[in-house]
């Protein structure tokens, strides 16, 4: 591990100034991803600015919605009564991620900003464009089971492993960012990048930008929502494919629907084409399948992960079918 200085920030402004003023500095939240990457030699900050004890650890009610502080632990967010009641998709997504020990430490902002990654990114003995731009991609032509089928590029096929972020993408969450220039609000759909020719950048955030909160909008339909995750083990394993779904029915018709996919792209993948295909139409299994196919028309699986296309279709249909049955 590279030597580093440690600073416990007193307030968010101090934390932003400390990181912004030093190119090698990084924020430390729960550290469950960053400390691991420091051990692996994937990350080597020379200053850690600890933001985990800042007073950003509250969940507050807003006009019909919730404002979640950046330092709220994943376990606390999943257990929050209002999250369980109003946004079951988020509680379920959080509970399906990592282990009890890791959820007790990992923070809301840290979960969002865990690295988009793959086994080669974490193995410093192999080429990886995300870790060392221009060095090549070891996954293309290699092991691809956990890799992207949507939105990837010839430079990177890694996936974002968060479950929480998939639910937040479906809920149209808004990320509050404090930067050297002040505060701004960013829809979660604009936070993450596709790899393109700069896979070293997972998000649009600049050095020194600190996420201070996530706002969940008023969305009564989210009371009927679900998170479904397929993986190689029953627990404590990343998604091969996951789906976050909110379904609002008007009789047998789809009034509104929100769908986001995990495990299939460099970012939580909002399935806008599938949503569009469903809105105003019948809530039937046939319609769900056609909607999934509309989204997956753009899928470009790799040799070794072709199964994910059918798996995604199946998970989307099953999640929507369950929600529709619940609503009847």
């Amino acid at each position, binding site marked *: 591990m590279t030597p580093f200085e440690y600073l416990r920030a007193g307030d968010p402004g101090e934390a932003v100034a400390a990181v912004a003023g030093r190119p090698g500095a990084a924020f430390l939240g729960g550290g469950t991803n960053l400390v*691991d990457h420091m051990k692996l030699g994937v990350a080597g900050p020379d200053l850690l600015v600890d933001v985990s004890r800042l007073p950003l650890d509250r969940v507050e009610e807003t006009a019909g919605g919730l404002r979640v502080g950046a330092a709220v632990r994943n376990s606390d967010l999943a257990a929050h009564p209002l999250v369980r009641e109003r946004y079951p998709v988020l509680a379920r997504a959080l509970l399906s991620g990592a282990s009890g*020990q890791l959820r007790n430490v990992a923070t809301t902002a840290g979960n969002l900003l865990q690295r988009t990654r793959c086994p080669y990114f974490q193995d410093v003995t192999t080429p990886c464009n995300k870790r060392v731009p221009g060095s090549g991609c070891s996954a293309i032509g290699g092991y691809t089971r956990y890799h992207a089928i949507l939105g990837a590029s010839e430079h990177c096929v890694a996936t974002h492993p968060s479950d929480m972020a998939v639910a937040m993408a479906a809920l149209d969450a808004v990320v509050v960012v404090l930067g050297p220039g002040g505060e701004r609000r960013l829809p979660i759909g604009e936070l993450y990048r596709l790899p393109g020719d700069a896979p070293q950048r997972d998000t649009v955030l600049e050095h020194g930008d600190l996420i201070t909160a996530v706002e969940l909008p008023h969305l009564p339909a989210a009371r009927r929502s679900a998170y479904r995750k397929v993986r190689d083990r029953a627990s404590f394993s990343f998604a091969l494919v996951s789906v976050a779904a909110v379904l609002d029915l008007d009789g047998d018709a789809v009034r509104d629907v929100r769908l986001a996919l995990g495990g299939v792209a460099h970012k939580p993948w909002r399935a806008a084409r599938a949503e569009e295909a469903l809105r105003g139409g019948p809530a039937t299994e046939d319609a769900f399948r056609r909607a999934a196919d509309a989204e997956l028309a753009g899928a470009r699986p790799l040799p070794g992960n072709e199964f994910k296309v059918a798996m995604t279709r199946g998970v989307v249909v099953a999640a929507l079918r369950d929600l529709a049955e619940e609503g009847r």
Partner: protein
Amino acid sequence: MNARITLRVDGRDRPVALDTRTTLLDALRDRLSVTSPKKGCDHGQCGACTVLLDGRRVVSCLILAVACDGSEVVTAQGLVEEGEPHPVQRAFLEEDGFQCGFCTPGQICSAVGMLQEVKAGHPSQVTDDLTGPVTLDDEEIRERLSGNLCRCGAYVNIVAALREETAPSEETSPRAETSPSEEAES
């Protein structure tokens, strides 16, 4: 880079000067000679290093010691009170919830933390009703302890230990007739 911190470990204040790169696990084991948390994978995947940090179960290998200045740490060793094993420790002995024992201190700390989470009404991934009460059946125990691996495969008896530990105890435990002392040495 060095830092001076104080950890409260198993009820005692332990000031220590250490390199900022030191994890909580290495601080406990190598600097403070508290060796009940074990180093398995050192990447947060096996749970052998689980301790209670300010009352919550965490993997101590992924936490920097310097970030824990002023915190309270309880290890499996610290769960013993006045020479008496914690009820969860006793249940592991009585149900033979281990073979080699390497993962056991982590399993026990994780179980103690998990039982507190259940008591607080926290649901898990396998809880049917997110807003209802939690019944700690075998499926719940397995899910909630999925962060602790046992390479001997003692899972069946670990689940049994926690089933016993959490069962309503109207009976005067027949378990008490087995002799924990005979099993404690394994």
